[in-house]
């Protein structure tokens, strides 16, 4: 069965510093991969997604992610973090066959220090 691992439960980054959130997946074929963010009191918002093609994907809010098949990873990056980026981030994969339901990792909570 497909699974997603986010090894970091919490990460603290200084404002202006770079960010990388880790995501590893278990899946036999080329996966459909997603990163969602949940800010306090809000629903999950899609940051970016990867289906095929260019392995470096650009998303909203200045985020990008790189798909690395050899490492089964889809890490999320941002070159300079803003205080408003403090939130919980979820990596997810869509199951096959059917491509219907999302399988999520446990999430990484990002804290931004001044």
């Amino acid at each position, binding site marked *: 069965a497909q699974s*997603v691992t986010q090894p970091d439960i919490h990460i603290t980054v200084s404002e202006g510093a770079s960010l990388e959130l880790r995501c590893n997946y278990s899946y036999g074929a080329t996966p*459909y991969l997603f990163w*969602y963010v949940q800010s306090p*009191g*809000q*629903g*999950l*918002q*899609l940051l970016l*997604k990867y*289906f095929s093609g260019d392995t470096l994907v650009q998303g909203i809010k200045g985020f990008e992610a790189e798909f690395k098949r050899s490492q089964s990873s889809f890490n999320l990056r941002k070159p300079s973090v803003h205080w408003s980026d403090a939130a919980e981030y*979820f990596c*997810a994969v*869509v199951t096959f066959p*059917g*491509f*219907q*339901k*999302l*399988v*999520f*990792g*446990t*999430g990484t909570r990002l804290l931004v220090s001044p």
Partner: protein
Amino acid sequence: EAGVTQFPSHSVIEKGQTVTLRCDPISGHDNLYWYRRVMGKEIKFLLHFVKESKQDESGMPNNRFLAERTGGTYSTLKVQPAELEDSGVYFCASSLGQGGHEQYFGPGTRLTVT
């Protein structure tokens, strides 16, 4: 355009009571999903509607959970009778299509069973 809405935002009930959660998807979205996050764990799929039909209910924990989507519009998720382990955040999402189509999430309903 209104997003996915969920009601109530919070619910506190006693073990053995009944609770009904409601989700209003984005207008025109035939696909509606329910997910649940138990504290400290990953967000898990419960079920998927296409219009009024249950496409996949493989994630429903047991027969104390009943989901409906009458008329293919809003959906309800009833828990009867509630148990302590049902506590968590229940998310609803909707999408225009399946597979790679973005699932738009509501803010969730936080259910606490005491």
